[in-house]
């Protein structure tokens, strides 16, 4: 799986201000079937570690604070 080089270039974007992973939340990491989300060791917030997404959406739907946004490519909409 390719490593995501820039967080802004990946489909799953996490709003650090809303993310409560630093409080112990791991919902998005737990629900991702491809296991591409991680909690950053530096910021303690969730981020997309591997640029591989099926756009299945549970990370966005289940995030308790609405911090996760999945940007679906135009051709898949």
């Amino acid at each position, binding site marked *: 799986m390719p490593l995501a080089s820039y967080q802004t270039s990946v489909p799953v974007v996490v709003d650090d201000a809303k993310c409560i992973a630093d409080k112990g939340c791991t919902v998005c990491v737990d629900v991702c079937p491809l296991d591409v989300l991680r909690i950053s060791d530096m910021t303690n917030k969730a981020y997309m570690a591997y640029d591989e997404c099926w756009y299945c959406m549970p990370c966005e739907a289940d995030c*308790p604070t609405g911090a996760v946004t999945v940007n679906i490519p135009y051709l898949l909409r």
Partner: protein
Amino acid sequence: MSGPFESYDDLDDADERLQAADPAERRVAIIALGHSGDPAAVAHLAKLVADPDSGVRQQVAMALGEFDGPEAASALVKLLVDPERIVAAAAADSMAEFKDPACAGIILPLVKHAHAFVRMGALRALRELRCKDTLKPALEALQDADAAVRVQAIGVIGFLKLEESIPALTALINDPDAHVRRAAVSALAFSQMKPAAETITRALKDSDWMVREMAAETLGLNANGSLAADQLVGSLADEFWQVRLKAIRSLGRMKVERAVRPIGNCINHDQANLRKEAAAALGEIAHPDGEAFLVVIADDPDPDVRKNARWALQQIAARKARAGA
């Protein structure tokens, strides 16, 4: 203690986290309790229904949806009347997952609540409980001023599948709201009796295409639906292809031989879905007259249409072989 919590100390620890000053920490503790699946967690979650943070209350409502039973229902009832819409909406979603009929007595009083959203949420929650005590309040809710509440009341009645509710559902065929009429036609699907089929047949002439579509589909499920075969054939000329598609499917299911030519006339429609259903219906009817239409789409650009056409031609060939034998 059975379940994910190994000891009472674990739940005490969860209780401590539920009282954290930071709402985000409380939310994380609530998520953990919800995921535990341990019925003992419900009492701990119920303590937070009056939390000052609406996000925490919303999380409690979502977590309680992981459980079932009167204790969780009692807590969710309080959250359904929450002034914050996100909390009430989460409570409505969670309550709709419940299956334990023992919850009905707790939810029923909300059917007469002043706010339409609460009445709607309560009726939606009662639907899958399939408790006979809910029939009377649901029938009364059919007179509700709010159309969305009437739709949910129809859902409760439809799930109960009691013939005694047929007259009330039949009366709704004249409701001013199209969504209510559509829901009523859909609910009548449970009845295999002639009166239900007659009501659904009348709905084929409804002014709203979605009601006509539902009627065309539902007639195919009714044992007396074939009595409306002529009206269904008439629906093949409906201005909406969605209605025509359902009519084709029902006529095929009922094996109405006089529908072969009208269905065959739909075989060149622009919509591949319609061509596919027409081919399947001609196969189900398996009348030799359908062969001429099926040959036309044997090289259809859509593979699903070609597949159905091949299958249909096989059905007709098999019928011919049986007749010849």
